[in-house]
């Protein structure tokens, strides 16, 4: 596995540990989707697919694809025992009504007040928010999963988001290839760092002020 992939695996493994047995979880497209592969043994979680079911399973095997059963990205998937189908009104009632325990999404920017920008870059990328705004407002715990810095090496954890917000003050945890950060009313708290970095390096790669937890864990 290449080093970048190893870092991603470490990150998603850390996120997977947050889910207690029986949790209902919605995973965003991309890196968040990988979290499903690293649920600790002995725990069962159910995945919510916002296009209309609980119990999202692995991709459908070749030749077994069913056009009636796709995930929110349109790819053919499966449903696991314990799952059920419903329509979009129910799906988003489940989301907005606070019945989804965790949502994991990527971010363009996140800031010290838990504000999230992840759905558009004006003039460049305007695909629409899809279900992201509802998920971030509705899920009990919002976990941002992302690279700590952008392609140019600039921090993505800012004092204040500059891009249009997806939601205000809804992010609970930020997990990156470098750090595990909790959003609190008093600001961001660095609780854990990746095994190949240091607190100093994390601080350097973060624009927002970070409080350092009494005991820093490693992941």
């Amino acid at each position, binding site marked *: 596995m290449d080093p970048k992939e190893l870092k991603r695996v470490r990150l998603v493994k850390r996120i997977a540990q947050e889910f207690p047995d029986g949790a209902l979880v919605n995973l965003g497209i991309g890196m968040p989707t990988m979290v499903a592969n690293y649920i600790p043994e002995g725990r069962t979680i159910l995945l919510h697919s916002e296009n209309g079911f609980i119990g999202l399973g692995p991709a459908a095997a070749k030749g077994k694809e069913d*056009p009636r059963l796709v995930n929110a990205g349109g790819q053919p998937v499966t449903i696991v025992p314990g799952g059920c189908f419903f329509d979009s009104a129910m799906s988003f009632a489940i989301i907005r009504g606070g019945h989804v325990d965790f949502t994991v999404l990527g971010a363009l920017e996140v800031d010290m007040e838990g504000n999230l920008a992840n759905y558009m870059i004006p003039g460049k990328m305007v695909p*629409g928010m*899809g279900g992201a705004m*509802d998920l971030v407002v509705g899920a009990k715990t919002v976990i941002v999963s992302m690279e700590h810095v952008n392609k140019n090496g600039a921090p993505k954890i800012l004092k204040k988001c500059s891009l249009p*917000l997806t*939601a205000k003050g809804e992010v609970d945890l930020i997990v990156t290839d470098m750090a595990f950060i909790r959003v609190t009313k008093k600001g961001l708290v660095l609780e854990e760092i990746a095994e190949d970095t240091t607190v100093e390096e994390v601080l350097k790669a973060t624009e927002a002020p970070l409080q350092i937890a009494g005991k820093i864990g490693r992941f």
Partner: protein
Amino acid sequence: MKPILTPEKAVEKIADGASLMASGFMGCGNAFTLIDALMKKGSRDLTLITSDTSFPEVGVGRLVCGNRVKQLYASHIGTNPVSGQKMNSGEMRVTLIPQGTFNERIRAKGAGLGGVLTPTGMYTEVEKGKQKLSIEGKEYLLEPPLGADFAFIKAETCDTFGNCFLPMATKNSAISMAMAADFVIVEADRITRPEETDPEKVTIPGVFVSAIVKAELPASNLQLK
């Protein structure tokens, strides 16, 4: 008893400038036969209300790529690059709505409600120009109902009273849209006798359905690599 029409006859009244709801999610649950018939009819300047614009050549994506849409209401257009191009060039007006709000606005129309109050979109671009209401100490956006002249619904079975069964993930926005449009056309894989319907397994009550068409085209939404 609901009229059973040919696809051509069913879309006959969808004139230039009409508003159309099309259920489906990334093409899953699109009414492929009806969309094909509407493409052939050639109606233009449509207002299209659909969760997403699918992929360029799949289902509702064809309406966008075929220059049939003047105004689009959707929550996501990222999988059909032509939608973004037409939005940026000004050729198609696009109103992007959070997915949950999109569905509730349509459901509100069909349920006779004056709108919905939602926390989704507060403190974002979505709140611009909208009324806010404080209910029990929490702020909400007032989102108005959303209806249409026509709706295209895809069902696996539809009996002659219009009772539909929609399997798996094809339900998505179909129930809300069937409630919210003036003339609702169901495209069914099988048109059945009412005696064959288990009343416990009806996804959309027949009361909302205006006409039924037999599906002629297979679902072509799968993006197989």
